[in-house]
C-alpha cells in the first residue's frame, strides 16, 4: 500500500519538476515548483519523517515559492520574455546528467534504508511511539549546536549583505514598484 502511495507521489513530483524546467511561463513554472515541493513533502510522510515533511511545506512550498513569486512580480515582466536558452546549454546538460549519475550511484551503493522495504523503519518508529520531533530538537540544540549556530550566522551574514546591497546610497530615492508596473501596463 505504501509503495502505491509512494509511486503516485513520485509521479506527481516528477511531473511538477518537469513543469519547472519545460514551462516557458515563469509563474506557471513556479506553480509546478510548488507541486513538486508538496510531492516531496508527501514522500517524506511515506518515509515516516513527519517533521521533515512539515518543514518542507513551511519553508520550500511556502516561503521559497512566495519569495520567487514576489521577485517575479517586482521585476519588469518584459525582461522575462527574453530567450531563456544560451550557449551554455550543452555544458548545463552535461553537468545535470553528471549530478544525476553521481546521486544514483551514491544511493545504490549506500546503506540507506530502502523505501521498498519500509517495514523495519515502520516498526522502529511504532516502537518509539513518537514523530522523532524531540530527537530532532535534541540533536539540533545539544549534539550539533555549534554547526547549527554557524549555519545561522552564515544566514545572518547573507541577509545583512543582501540588505546592504539592495539599500544602495542613502541619498538615492527608494526604487518604487508602482512606476515600473505602470510602465509595463502602458
Amino acid at each position, binding site marked *: 500500500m505504501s509503495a502505491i502511495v509512494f509511486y503516485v507521489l513520485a509521479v506527481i513530483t516528477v511531473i511538477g519538476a518537469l513543469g519547472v524546467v519545460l514551462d516557458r511561463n515563469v*509563474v506557471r513554472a513556479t*506553480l509546478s515548483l*510548488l507541486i513538486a515541493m508538496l510531492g516531496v513533502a508527501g514522500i517524506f510522510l511515506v518515509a515516516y519523517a*513527519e517533521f521533515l515533511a*512539515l518543514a518542507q511545506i*513551511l519553508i520550500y512550498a511556502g516561503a521559497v515559492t512566495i519569495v520567487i513569486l514576489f521577485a517575479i*512580480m517586482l521585476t519588469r515582466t518584459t525582461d522575462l520574455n527574453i530567450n531563456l536558452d544560451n550557449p551554455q546549454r550543452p555544458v548545463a546538460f552535461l553537468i545535470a546528467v553528471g549530478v544525476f549519475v553521481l546521486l544514483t550511484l551514491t544511493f545504490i551503493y549506500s546503506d540507506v534504508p530502502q523505501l521498498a522495504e519500509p517495514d523495519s523503519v515502520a516498526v522502529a518508529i511504532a516502537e518509539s511511539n513518537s514523530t522523532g520531533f524531540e530527537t530532532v530538537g535534541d540533536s539540533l540544540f545539544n549534539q550539533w549546536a555549534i554547526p547549527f549556530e554557524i549555519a545561522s550566522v552564515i544566514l545572518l551574514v547573507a541577509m545583512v549583505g543582501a540588505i546592504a546591497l539592495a539599500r544602495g546610497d542613502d541619498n538615492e*530615492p527608494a526604487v518604487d514598484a*508602482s512606476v515600473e508596473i505602470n510602465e509595463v501596463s*502602458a
Partner: protein
Amino acid sequence: MNEFNWTYIAVVVVGIFGLFAFLSTVVISLTWYERKTLARIQMRAGPSRVGPHGLLQPMADVFKLITKEDIRPTNSSGMLFWSAPIIVFVSAFLVWLTVPFADGAVVAPQELGLLYIVAISTVGIVGLLIAGYTSSSKYSVLGGIRAAAQLVSYEIPIIVVVLAIAVLVQSLDLRDVVLGNEVTIGERVISFGGQGAIPFAFIMPLGLIVFILAGLAELGRTPFDIHHAESEVVGGPFLEYSGAHWAVFFLAEYINTFVIAALTILLFFGGWSWPSPPESIFGTALEEWQTDALGVGWFLFKTYMVVGLFFWFRGTYPRLRIDQLMAFGWKSLIPLSFVNFILMSIVIFYDWPLWTMTTFSVPILIGGLYFGARRTARKADPSTVQMYRRASRDDGGNKLVPDGTGD
C-alpha cells in the same frame, strides 16, 4: 500513521466531507452574523427581508454567486487564473483537519498539530500572489504584492507566540494544549495545563494580544485590510474574479477567520473544557458522546464570541496606512512576541511559578502597545512613502513624478 489502516482512511474521508459541510454552514452563518453586527454598530437594520430577521439572506447570496457568469480576463493565463482560488481554499480547509472540537471530535489528530497549522496556512499566500499576478490588472498586482508582504511579516509573531505556548505545554499537540500534558524530567513528573487550570490568557496576556492583532492582520481584516482595501486597490487580488470563483475566495477568507478565532480559544481560553466539569454542573453522570457534544457546543460558543470581537473591530477602526502596517508588525509585534517567548522560556526553564509570567507580561504589554501605537500614529517617513502624480502634458505626458510626501 503507523499503518495503512482502511478504517482510519474511511473515518478521515467521512470526516473531510463532514467538515466541509460543517464549515460551509459556519461560513453562511458568519456572513449573516457579520452583516447584522455591522448593522447594529452603524444603527441600521441589516438584512431583514429574506426569511425571519434576514436569516435566509446568505442562501440567496449563495444562489446569486453560483448562477453568476464566471469571467476571465483575456490576458490572463487560464490554468493559473483558475488554480489560484483552489490553492487558497485548500490550504484554508486543510488546516481544519487537525483542529479538535472536543476530545473525541477531531478528523486527524497529530502530534505536530501546531506546526502543521502554521505550515499549511503559509501555502495559501502563494494562491493570493498568483491571483494577483494573473489577473493582468495593476490593482491586482499591487494587491498581491501587498498581501504577500503583509502576510509573510505577520506570520512571524504568530509562529513565535505559538512557540511560546508549545514551551508552556511542552507539546505541539492541540489536544495537549487543552487537556494538559505531563512530562517526566529525570525523576520528576511535571504537569502542564489541563482541566481546572488557569486559562493561558492569564499566564501570557502579552501573547494573547500579539496573537489576536497578528491574527487580524493575517486575515486581512480591518484595521489591517491593506491588501484588498477597496478605496486604494479596488479589491486587490480578487478584483477580476466573479461568480463561483470569487465565492471560493470568500469561503476561504471566512474559514480563515474562524480558524484564527478557534485557535485563540484553543491556545488561550481552554478550548472545549468547561469552567468546571459538566457532570458537576448537571449533577448526573454523562456518556462520553454527551460530554463531547457539550464540549463542541461550548467551544463553538466561545469561538463565535471571538469572531464577534473581530467584527466589532471592523465596525470601529479605520484602516492603517501600508507603512504604518509594516512598522507596527516589524517594530512592535515581532519584538513583543520574542520578549514573550524568551520570558516564557526563562520561567519554564527555572521552574518559577506561572504567575511571575503574568507579572512580567502586563507592564511590557502596556508599555509596548503604548509606544507601538504612538510610533504607528506618526506622520509617514518621506523615505518610505512617496506619492506620485501624473506629469502635465507639456512636461512629458504619461509619466509619474514625485508629489511631495504622503501623510
